[in-house]
């Protein structure tokens, strides 16, 4: 398995050789920031194209096919359009909160990017409570949505954001519990540690029954957490026009739009980390030749590839199922997912205690 940390340490040492330590740290931070933004933008563009093509395939259409070969430049054109659109200023709104809300949403997903295991040695920060940090920062997003709905001074946005608040607070429980289930198996909260634990076998196979249950619950809760169909009640266009971001225009709307796709990536990325080994290639105990060949595929490709495949499942949900109603959504969480999750946690602990996992 190629360790990519040699690149980062080479960059670090070459900086340190030409400038003082504090300056090199600052420059590195800036570089990482720029890099993150770039990855962020590129991923968002890719996801927009990816979803539109997939959705078109589900709906017997072609999807974007005019701008560039196979419509590849369509999402660039879309983003360019979004950037040059006028931001309409509204009267009778809370201007400060109205402007702040999209940034809060986008900051939440940016922060989560920092701890994702991009590749072997390519993690931005790896500290002992990495996964905990990830859950904590991703809850900031709901604040942005609530503020957006409240500050717009519009009845539709208010209903949309309150729905969103109820939904996110409820489903964070499920996400948290299924993460705890997997943390039990890993024995660590550090993102790097969780990946290393899966070096011989991915957790979904290692933890078998409870891991699969946790995975299913995580995917359901993750879809709800990202406000995507069939849980897209906060922005149910047939009920609330566009929900909490009805009043936003131009790039402010674009931020919500981007954050939705990036959150999709984050949810699939975390699922990859917890259940499918993060950047870890597919290893099967006993098949050394196979494992060796798998190691030749770069770890970055493994991580992003797995995340995109899992996103496919979430996109598939959206274009197949009708939307739930708010009371059904909440009873699904509180009456079904939460009890199952709690029982599943106990089951996982039993399996670990009696060493029944692979």
């Amino acid at each position, binding site marked *: 398995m190629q360790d990519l940390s040699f690149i980062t340490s080479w960059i670090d040492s070459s900086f340190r050789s030409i400038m003082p330590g504090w300056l090199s740290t600052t420059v590195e931070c800036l570089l990482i920031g720029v890099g993150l933004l770039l990855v962020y933008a590129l991923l968002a563009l890719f996801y927009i194209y990816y979803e539109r093509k997939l959705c078109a395939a589900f709906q017997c259409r072609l999807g974007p096919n005019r701008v560039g070969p196979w419509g590849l430049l369509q999402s660039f054109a879309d983003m360019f359009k979004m950037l040059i659109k006028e931001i309409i200023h509204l009267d009778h709104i809370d201007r400060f909160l109205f402007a702040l809300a999209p940034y809060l949403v986008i900051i939440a997903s940016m922060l989560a990017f920092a701890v994702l295991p991009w590749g072997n040695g390519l993690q931005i920060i790896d500290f002992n409570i990495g996964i905990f940090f990830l859950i904590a920062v991703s809850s900031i997003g709901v604040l942005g949505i609530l503020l957006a709905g409240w500050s717009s001074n519009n009845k539709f946005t208010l209903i949309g954001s309150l729905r969103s608040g109820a939904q996110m607070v409820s489903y964070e429980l499920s996400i948290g519990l299924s993460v705890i289930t997997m943390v039990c198996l890993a024995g660590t909260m550090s993102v790097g540690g969780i990946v290393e634990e899966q070096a011989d076998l991915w957790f979904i196979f290692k933890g078998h029954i409870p891991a699969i249950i946790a995975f299913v619950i995580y995917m359901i809760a993750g879809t709800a957490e990202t406000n995507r169909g069939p849980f897209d009640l906060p922005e149910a266009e047939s009920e609330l026009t566009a929900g909490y971001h009805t009043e936003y225009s131009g790039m402010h709307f674009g931020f919500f739009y981007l954050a939705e796709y990036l959150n999709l990536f984050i949810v699939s990325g975390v699922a990859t980390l917890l259940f499918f080994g993060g950047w870890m290639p597919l290893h099967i105990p006993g098949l050394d030749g196979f494992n060796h060949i798998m190691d030749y595929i770069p770890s970055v490709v493994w991580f992003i590839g797995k995340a995109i495949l899992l996103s496919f499942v979430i996109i598939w949900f959206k274009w197949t199922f*009708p939307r739930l109603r708010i009371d059904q959504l909440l009873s699904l969480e509180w009456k079904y997912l939460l009890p199952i999750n709690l029982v599943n946690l106990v089951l996982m602990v039993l399996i670990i205690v009696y060493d029944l996992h692979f």
Partner: protein
Amino acid sequence: MTNSLNDILITMANITEKISKLFPQAVIEGDTTPVVTIPNAQWHDLALALRDDADIRMDYLITITGMDWTDRLGAIYYLMSTTYNKIIGVKVIAEGDRQQPWIYSAADVWKVATLFEREVFDFLGIIFVNNPDMRRLFLSIDWVGYPLRKDYDQNPELNPVSTESERQTDFTDVYTLDENGKIVKNEVRVFEKDDFVVNIGPQHPATHGVLRFRTAVDGETVKKIDVYCGYIHRGIEKLCENLTYPQTLHFMDRMDYFSAHNYHHALCMLYEKAAGIEISRRAQVIRVMMDELSRIASHCLFIGTYCMDLGATTMLFYALRVREQILDIMEKTCGARMTFNYECIGGVMQDLAPDFRADVKALLEVLPRNIKEYNDVFTGNVIARNRMEGVGVLSREDAIAYAVTGPSGRASGWACDMRKLQPYSIYAELDFEEVTATEGDSMARFKCRMREIEESAKILAQLVDNIPDGEYCVKVPKVIKLPAGQWFQVTEGCRGAFGLYLESDGSTKPYRLHIAPPCLPQAAVVDHLTRGQKIADLITIGGSLDYIVPDIDR
């Protein structure tokens, strides 16, 4: 069948006899669809007797036609008995002068009358005393004059196109009689004082057009809905009064644009009946086939948009696939994909396209596969079932009281298919089932439409190989003049019973053409169905009723 037994026992003569026994002042004219003329003072008692008398049971109010005979104003109520399947008209002459004509309201007898009376008030200024909600229905509250009165001043300066926001009011009027017999106007709040009222519409993705629901909500729960129509009102009835009979046909495809063929068919039949024109068998078969093709196309669009309302966007494309195929068939024959203007007095405008038969057969081949696919993808889905089952339950009694016809009424167990009840054209010879269900919820309404597609396909299969030769349009006079008289007729559109009332003074233009669309009562029932439900259910219920806004507004 109890119905056929009753048909033998109770004839129209029995009913008119009973009425004249109970109300000796009533004047009864005509025999198949008699019109009873009653003084206003006895009208309310007659209304109650008509609804409740065991031998009459006129429980379904089809429409109220407001009339201006220049010397007096009045209203004609068309009623139908769901037990004995008989139609009767009641003519009430308004009391008072032209400044303040009034009639007793029948809103407490037939629930749907509340809205129908508002329409008459809006257009003719007849006040319905004791109606709980006597506002204008379609026109804005500042409108000057009553358009359907014959002395209406059409000067555009009286009602200029406003660039200001429309004036709104939170109050409605209730007119009552005081002890001296004078009319007193009282103002009543539409909503309670501190209700949280959300405007759903007129520009809203789920209202299927420019319909506006002023919705009082308590959290996610709907407390009351005030239906606000008129945003696409074009005054078709008024326009018809100034046009010749063939010219009036063109409006029929601009109301319920999915029932364009059915509505054209209905109006052509009415004119042919009045003029005594016999049309060829070929024309009849073509008309019926076009009606049924429209029905399939319309229900397909319903399935698609309804699923989209519920969040299942993909189903729209699956349903539109079939609809496209039908539109292609229509395009080849009629030259249009919407607003077909195909049926004309005497038959149809042009002959069928050469590959019509082959195209219909191809359609009939793919239909069962598609219906199976819809059921696999959507109907059986657990989320879809949770969203629709038990949501917006309309009982049979309420369906009749609110005059909810068509598939929505049949889903409540009311067999109200006019093709069966009042067979017209060649429907009596055709073999098809009337689709009914008993649940009355949104799921039943959805499934009824799904099954009606199959029944329409059955009709098409019977006719596609039996299109007789002959002329597609018989010779009719260049200038069509109808004899003086009045006619009423109900047919089945894609969304329910479509009533037409025609009064002719013997000229080339209708004296009064009243259109009773199926969608107006369906919009009226939304408030009743959604109270206490969630906002999301409002979308489910509204979608399942499948109203078309231009049909409500006309």
